[in-house]
């Protein structure tokens, strides 16, 4: 890519971060992170607890002191925070609304608080849920609170939505309605969403890009389309495990296409003699996450 092209892309990007670092005392919670988020993307922010996800999100909306270059919607998050929040939303927890309030009170409140909030749109979105306008928050289930909260947020005409663990503690039905709302309301080709979650398998198909953090460092920043091309997963028989291991895969685990099969994941295409020993399969995001962050607390069984 030539320089003017690169400049044009970073100028139109909703988020542009270069060498971003956030320190808490001596610890670098976010360590020299560079990435851009263009418009129309759904970006998954993955990392174990303490990897720096929340700190990075806070930096994007000016709630953490960051070093390095950072532009969000063309603005400096710390300096232009008020202006930024006209068109960016940060939701640290979608399951919290004041318990005493009625849903229509919240709509009135939001109309007064946020200039780009549309009460009509919020009501329209709420009609699709089981939440009533006259319901008090305290009578709603957790899933319904999330739906109400998301309807309120989606009714803000924002170009960037930053959601920290929106599906935490939700049952499967509530998560599904959340994903539907995400696709229906936010994927219009203009808005972008940055979303952190541990529900990697469920959210993989909704994402266009992934950012992976490990101990503050960005270990992967890639579109899902490029991920399919760059990483090669081979399902193979246990009997050729040694040959596979010799080709230095990123990760190996039990399971795959057959009964006694294994899977090896490679960064880049392994040599033909190795390729021919297995059957190419789709590398899943969970596998890559495990491989690149090396903490075997996910549900795959490892060697």
């Amino acid at each position: 890519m030539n320089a003017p092209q690169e400049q044009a892309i970073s100028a139109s990007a909703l988020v542009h971060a270069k060498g971003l670092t956030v320190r808490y005392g001596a610890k670098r919670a976010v360590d020299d992170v560079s990435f851009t988020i263009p418009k129309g993307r759904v970006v998954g922010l993955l990392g174990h607890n303490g990897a720096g996800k929340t700190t990075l999100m806070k930096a994007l909306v000016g709630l953490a002191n960051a070093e390095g270059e950072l532009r969000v919607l063309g603005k400096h998050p710390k300096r232009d925070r008020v202006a930024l929040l006209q068109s960016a939303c940060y939701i640290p927890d979608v399951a919290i609304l004041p318990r005493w309030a009625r849903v229509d009170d919240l709509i009135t409140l939001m109309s007064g608080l946020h200039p780009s909030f549309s009460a009509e749109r919020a009501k329209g979105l709420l009609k699709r849920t089981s939440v009533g306008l006259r319901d008090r928050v305290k009578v709603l289930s957790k899933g319904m609170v999330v739906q109400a909260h998301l309807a309120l947020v989606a009714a803000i005409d924002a170009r960037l939505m930053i959601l920290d663990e929106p599906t935490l503690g939700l049952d499967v039905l509530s998560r599904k309605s959340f994903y539907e709302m995400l696709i229906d309301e936010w994927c219009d080709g203009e808005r972008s969403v940055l979303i952190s979650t541990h529900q990697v398998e469920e959210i993989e198909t909704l994402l266009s890009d992934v950012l992976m953090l490990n101990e503050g460092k960005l270990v992967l920043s890639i579109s899902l389309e490029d991920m399919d091309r760059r990483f090669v997963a081979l399902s193979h028989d246990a009997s050729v495990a040694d040959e596979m291991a010799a080709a230095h895969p990123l990760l190996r685990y039990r399971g795959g296409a057959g009964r006694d099969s294994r899977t090896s994941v490679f960064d880049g295409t392994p040599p033909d003699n190795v390729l021919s020993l297995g059957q190419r399969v789709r590398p899943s995001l969970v596998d890559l996450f495990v491989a690149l962050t090396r903490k075997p607390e996910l549900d795959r069984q490892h060697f």
Partner: protein
Amino acid sequence: MQTWDDRQPIYQQLAALLAEQLIDGDPPEGDAMPSVRALAGQYLLNPLTVSRALQALGEDGLLENRRGMGLYVKPGARDRLKQAERRRFLEAEWPRLRERLRRLGIGSEQLNWEAR
């Protein structure tokens, strides 16, 4: 929720699923395909993945882009798909099936061709 397997990229799996529906006449030839957003919402997929699947179907000559109106099912698409499916069956599936029938000693007269 639709489940996707680990064998192929998801856009290819969606393209295969949509192709199966086209064989069944859904939507019929000459009709518009559902929009990217509608499909994305239905299958809970990122719209970019849906676009790639539709593009693949377009490259296979099954869909046509009518300017300003979106994607339509091309006349003759069902035939093309059926032909491709038949070829795949005869070339890939049938030899395996024939081998299995031989091994089990099952002749064509023992197979019930009438049951639905």
